[in-house]
């Protein structure tokens, strides 16, 4: 039996972006981290770029593909790591979606934040989502909250870094 899929331009775009995000995610997971849970999150540069350029639907597809496929490749599918990754990705994308809603109005459009603002919000909500899931499901102890400020500090710093990278990427592509 032969299966035929017809793919369109959008599918190719999603596949390309997801492949990039998965590659970055897997390379990144090979590096040791100073604190469990703290990662540069460079794969989110791709998600953010997709979100800003192609809209939230495409970003959602790319983000979910990244979470599922890289967990299958890394062998963490359905493990706590996978759940944390999924919850972080979903929460940060929904916050990005909510954040850009008011700026769709034409009178607010000029106040639209750049990639940096979006990246900081995405990074902080990603971290909070992961943290809440970790606290609720895996370590339900109030002492865990002592780590929250440290995590959020890292999230803000790494958010700015990934925002700057995304901004440079967008500038580069617009010059073409």
């Amino acid at each position, binding site marked *: 039996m032969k299966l035929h899929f017809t793919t369109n331009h959008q599918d190719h775009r999603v596949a390309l972006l997801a492949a990039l995000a998965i590659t970055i995610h897997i390379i990144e997971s090979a590096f040791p981290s100073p604190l469990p849970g703290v990662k540069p999150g460079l794969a989110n540069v791709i998600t953010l770029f997709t979100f800003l350029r192609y809209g939230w639907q495409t970003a959602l597809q790319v983000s979910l593909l990244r979470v599922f496929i890289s967990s299958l490749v890394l062998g963490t599918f359905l493990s706590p790591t996978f759940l944390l990754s999924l919850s972080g990705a979903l929460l940060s994308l929904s916050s990005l979606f909510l954040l850009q809603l008011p700026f769709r109005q034409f009178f607010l459009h000029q106040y*639209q934040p*750049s990639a940096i*603002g979006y990246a*900081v919000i995405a990074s*902080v909500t990603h971290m909070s989502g992961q943290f809440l899931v970790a606290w609720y499901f895996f370590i339900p*102890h*109030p002492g865990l*909250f002592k780590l929250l*400020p440290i995590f959020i*500090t890292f999230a803000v710093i790494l958010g700015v870094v990934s925002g700057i990278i995304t901004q440079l990427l967008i500038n580069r592509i617009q010059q073409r």
Partner: protein
Amino acid sequence: MLTIGKVIFKATDIIILFAACALTVWLYSIFWFDSTQHGEAETLLVQFADNPPTEYSLSEERVITVEGKIGSSLIEIKQGKARFIHSSCRNQFCVFHGWLSVSGDTAACLPNRISISLKGAFSDYDAIAGSQ
């Protein structure tokens, strides 16, 4: 607008960054510098066998007599601390344990099947692992 090299920070970006920094500072202030969260014990829980524990306030100085399986145990509450002062058991481990002062501290008399522990809003211990 703030331009550093090729990167432009828009006004909204700066507001978001400022809010994120404020959130971080606020989190540090509630989770790290709040004195009420240290292992300040508030009550003493006394438990016999599988019965639900009885709570005593630590602010009231008193001596409690609890009837256990083999006899009675005397528990003293003084200056926000608690200890066994007498037990009918042979080993007297519970008495030698001394004062319990931090939330989460526990002492038990196994022969008499009585355990006491201090409770506060937050415990200084995540979990206690022991060996027998």
